[in-house]
């Protein structure tokens, strides 16, 4: 086991998980001295009727909760503009807390809004960087409606600066919500292909947390069980969407993965995924599922023993024991590619396996080949690359993107290798 000489781990979000966990909201808000939450969500969640379930749960017998406002206009990619707007709404309506219901974009938006309404100011850009947020923010409850981002337990908010077409990273322990509620009703109606993409997003968090530079024994343990839970349940849930126990297992896997990567950060897969999202507006989960095997291959010369260890939670004890030690790392990568293939079949072809397969609503290719160089350029500005075990330059990023576009495994001989391997101390 890799034991770093120094590490930090913080997972102080209270987690409530269950089939009817939402009914705890009034009690939680009362304990946080809050009565008037701003509900932040997106149109999809709102149309699916999930906000009614949440507001219904707030109307308990002795509940003093009065919803301040329901803001359901969060776009698929959280932006500085929407954050600034919602902070104004929060102040106008006299809200005292935030309840965020949704996936990654509403979560990141809510964190951004909380920065502004707690610390003051009208422009989120004044708080960029890793040391700008210096005190406890207002009460916040996070209710995920996908089993993917883990944003409900992460100290990061990724918010797009539309003017510069880059995703800004806001990092602070103060961004952690006070409470995260996992309720199977919130993910039960999630479409198959989104379940697939978000599930692969969560497994990517865990795999990158297990193989990137800030890994530590605690993030390893949460990553390990996250991989196991997601690998065991994802395909079953995509095939049987009403399996609420499977749904809850995926939510638990996603939150474990979130805890893990929040403390060990992520690397090349997220680096390129953020850039693809910023340039082509591709859903984050689709990028992650495609890029994960490539990220693991790219770092294989430095992380092969760690990737090999991941075969156990991915494929189970029998496959792990039957595979010779030398072949386990490659088998783990093959297993992830097989998961993508199985999900492609189970979703009727909507789960993309390579970048050229990602289509928009009008069946148009979302990542044309001629955008790859722009994506590689943007990736050089993304903070995730610093935690990747191997250096990633523009040329490296472009090479990986080209293979991922075509869906061909990376030729390991083309990966530039060098430097001291910190992960093999």
């Amino acid at each position, binding site marked *: 086991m890799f034991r*770093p000489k*120094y*590490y*930090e781990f913080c997972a102080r979000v209270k987690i409530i998980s269950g089939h009817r966990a939402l009914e705890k909201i009034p009690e939680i808000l009362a304990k946080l001295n809050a009565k008037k939450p701003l509900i932040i969500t997106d149109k999809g969640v709102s149309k699916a009727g999930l906000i009614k379930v949440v507001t219904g749960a707030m109307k308990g017998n002795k509940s003093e909760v009065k919803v301040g406002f329901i803001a359901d206009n969060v776009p698929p990619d959280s932006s500085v503009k929407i954050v600034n707007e919602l902070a104004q709404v929060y102040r106008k309506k006299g809200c005292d807390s935030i309840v965020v219901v949704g996936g990654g974009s509403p979560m990141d938006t809510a964190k951004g809004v909380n920065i502004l309404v707690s610390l003051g100011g009208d422009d989120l850009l004044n708080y*960029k*960087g*890793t*040391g*700008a947020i210096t005190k406890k923010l207002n009460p916040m409850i996070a209710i995920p409606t996908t089993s993917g981002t883990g944003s409900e337990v992460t100290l990061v908010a990724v918010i797009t600066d539309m003017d510069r077409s*880059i995703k*800004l*990273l806001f990092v602070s322990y103060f961004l952690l919500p006070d409470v995260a509620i996992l309720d199977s009703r919130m993910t039960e109606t999630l479409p198959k292909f989104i379940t697939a993409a978000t599930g692969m997003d969560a497994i990517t968090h865990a795999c990158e947390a297990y193989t*990137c*530079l*800030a890994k530590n024994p605690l993030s390893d343990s949460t990553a390990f069980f996250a991989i196991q839970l997601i690998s065991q349940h994802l395909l079953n849930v995509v095939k049987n969407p009403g399996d609420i126990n499977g749904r809850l297992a995926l939510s638990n896997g996603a939150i474990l993965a979130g805890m893990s990567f929040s403390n060990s*950060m992520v690397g090349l897969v997220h680096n390129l995924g953020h850039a693809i999202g910023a340039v082509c507006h591709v859903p984050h989960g689709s990028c992650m599922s495609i890029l994960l095997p490539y990220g693991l291959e790219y770092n294989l010369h430095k992380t092969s023993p760690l990737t090999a260890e991941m075969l156990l939670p991915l494929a189970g004890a029998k496959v792990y024991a039957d595979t010779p030690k030398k072949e386990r790392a490659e088998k783990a990568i093959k297993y992830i590619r097989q998961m993508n293939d199985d999900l492609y079949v189970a979703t009727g072809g909507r789960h993309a396996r390579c970048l050229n397969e990602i289509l928009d609503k009008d069946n148009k290719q979302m990542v044309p080949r001629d955008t790859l160089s722009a994506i590689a350029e943007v990736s*050089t*500005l*993304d*903070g995730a*690359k*610093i*935690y990747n*075990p*191997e*250096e990633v330059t523009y040329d490296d990023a472009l090479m990986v993107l080209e293979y991922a576009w075509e869906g061909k495994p990376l030729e390991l001989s083309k990966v*530039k*290798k*060098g*430097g*001291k391997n*910190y992960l093999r101390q």
Partner: protein
Amino acid sequence: MNYNVYPEIKPGKKFFKRIYISIMMWVVGRGIQAAARVDKVVKAEFLKLGDDFSFSLGVVPDGPFMIVGTNKKGKVKYMGWNPEGKQISLKLCIKNIEAAFLVFSFQESTAIAFAHNRFIVDGDLPASLSIVKVLDRVEIYLLPKFFASMAVKRYPKWSELPPLRKYIGRVLIYLRVFTIG
């Protein structure tokens, strides 16, 4: 509670480590200034960062610090050790003198220092990535390969930085560091 009775506890002086880091910061700061004139990669990074860009790298709370930025003529300059009164676009702060010593004695690379949460970044994160790239590049010029390999993730291959260019660049940068800057 009378706080005057219990004065603020200041971190230990660690005199020799502080002196060592101050010298290293002076060399690296002037090294960046020199490398921006000698090396295309460093020059390109500062061009991307724009005309009014400046950054500080230092140990909080009491220093030492180094400030480097682009002056009115568009030239990259080492702007001294005192950040007071200066408009600084990006502040890279190392959280304590011990962490700074690990970085400047090459026991910990910049990436590992980030992974160990040693830095506070006040400013634009993409700009901080450019500065990390600049610092890595300058270390490759200033240090022998054995030490530089510990400080960077991947030491450049001959095709990326031919030996002749590296050694000529090293001589020019050292000359500039200790003479005209």
